[in-house]
């Protein structure tokens, strides 16, 4: 680190060689900032795309389950329809049996009615105790036959109603089966679409990750360029170099150094730091306390007329 006076530092900063170096440093820093931003952006896009791919895949699996549920439901309905068909065969068979039974009772009822008419006519012609007893027996037989007919007919009608109910339910189930099958197909298609989209997103995420890696390389290269430029500054300008300041020993005071800011920072330091401004720092505190370097101070040694004027002139109430 070479000792310099302030005008020498300023002269160094004004040299074309230093200006060229500074331009290069700024370019490298701009490249680093751009690469940083690009890397951050790509990394966030990659993460987002991976998450979206994963979410789409999960949704596709859920949708596939829903398609499976629809298809299962359709299969159950087919099974139910088959059951109903079998039940309807049994019900029709029961009905036919009952219809046959009712027909028989109907014939029996006709025969008993004929017998009753004959008994009634015979009793009217020859009223005897026997004919009266025969007539009463015939009336009872006819009454029983009529009751049987009525009861069995009602059962026959109920059986028919059951047949019709089963047929109606069977028709309903058969109609719904196809709808459920189509719904299952549609949902399966949706799931397939989602799987394809998930794959596309995975591919996009892989591409983005590759771009992010490329950007990371650009970042590393810009960082390396900055490190190299700082190293160069050390050799070319005879200074100690940090990332934010260049340091030169002060010729007139071993305990002090000049530092040249390479950054614009209004927050971190005790003064608002502007690029290429020269500050004076002591060796102990370094840049934790920056003093803007001045070659034209101090006024006290020269004796300042203003103080005398202020103290001695222009008092209120005194003559000017």
């Amino acid at each position, binding site marked *: 680190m070479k000792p310099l006076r302030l005008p020498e530092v300023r002269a160094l900063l004004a040299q074309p060689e230093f200006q060229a170096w500074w331009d290069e440093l700024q370019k490298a820093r701009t490249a680093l900032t751009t690469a940083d931003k690009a890397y951050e952006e790509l990394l966030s896009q990659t993460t987002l795309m991976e998450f979206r791919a994963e979410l789409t895949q999960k949704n596709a699996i859920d949708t596939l389950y829903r398609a499976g549920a629809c298809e299962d439901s359709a299969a159950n309905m087919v099974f139910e329809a088959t059951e109903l068909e079998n039940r309807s065969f049994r019900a029709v068979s029961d009905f036919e049996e009952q219809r046959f039974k009712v027909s028989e009772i109907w014939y029996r009822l006709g025969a008993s009615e004929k017998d009753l008419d004959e008994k009634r006519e015979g009793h009217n012609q020859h009223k005897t105790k026997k004919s009266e007893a025969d007539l009463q027996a015939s009336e009872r037989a006819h009454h029983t036959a009529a009751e049987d007919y009525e009861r069995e007919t009602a059962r026959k009608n109920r059986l028919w109603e059951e047949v019709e109910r089963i047929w109606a339910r069977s028709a309903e189930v058969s109609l719904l089966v196809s709808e459920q099958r189509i719904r299952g197909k549609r949902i399966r298609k949706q799931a397939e679409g989602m799987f394809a989209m998930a794959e596309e997103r995975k591919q996009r995420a892989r591409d983005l990750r590759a771009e992010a890696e490329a950007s990371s390389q650009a970042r590393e290269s810009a960082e390396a360029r900055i490190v190299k430029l700082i190293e160069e500054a050390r050799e070319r300008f005879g200074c100690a170099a940090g990332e934010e300041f260049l340091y030169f020993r002060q010729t007139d005071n071993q305990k002090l150094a000049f530092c040249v800011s390479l950054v614009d920072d209004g927050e971190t330091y005790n003064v*608002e730091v502007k690029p290429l401004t020269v500050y004076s720092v002591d060796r102990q505190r370094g840049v934790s306390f920056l003093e803007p370097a001045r070659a034209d101070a101090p006024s006290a040694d020269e004796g300042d007329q203003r103080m005398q004027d202020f103290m001695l002139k222009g008092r209120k109430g005194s003559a000017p």
Partner: protein
Amino acid sequence: MDKLGVIARSPLFEMLSDQELDYVAELSRPRSLAAGQVMFEEGALGDSLFVIVSGEVEVLRRDATGVQKLIAVLNPMEFFGEMSLVDKDYRSATIRARTDVELLQLSAENLTTFRKNYRDGFTFVIINIARVLSTRLREANTRLAARL
């Protein structure tokens, strides 16, 4: 922010030469406060004074019962925080931004740097502070006399 323009117009830096004003501008740090934000509280430690660049600040002080009362409103080019620099005591009042405010901060350390380089300039800054304090004291005396 035109730091030099503000500093050149502030009563705190009256009588300073262009070089001195330029140096003070270099030593000052811009700060900003949103409306309602407190710069410092009464009773806090402090080693900086502030010049108002834009906006308005309220000077608030607690009375004997602890109720905070507005005692002044300061405008651009006026300054505050100087009392703690002079008497090395705790902050005598709370400063709160009445509007969005931009400030310039000068720490005791930075003023010391100024003193090291421009002794008479520094003396003028101290005189300017004394003048303002003197004006305030005169006003307070007048108010006190009116009450007695």
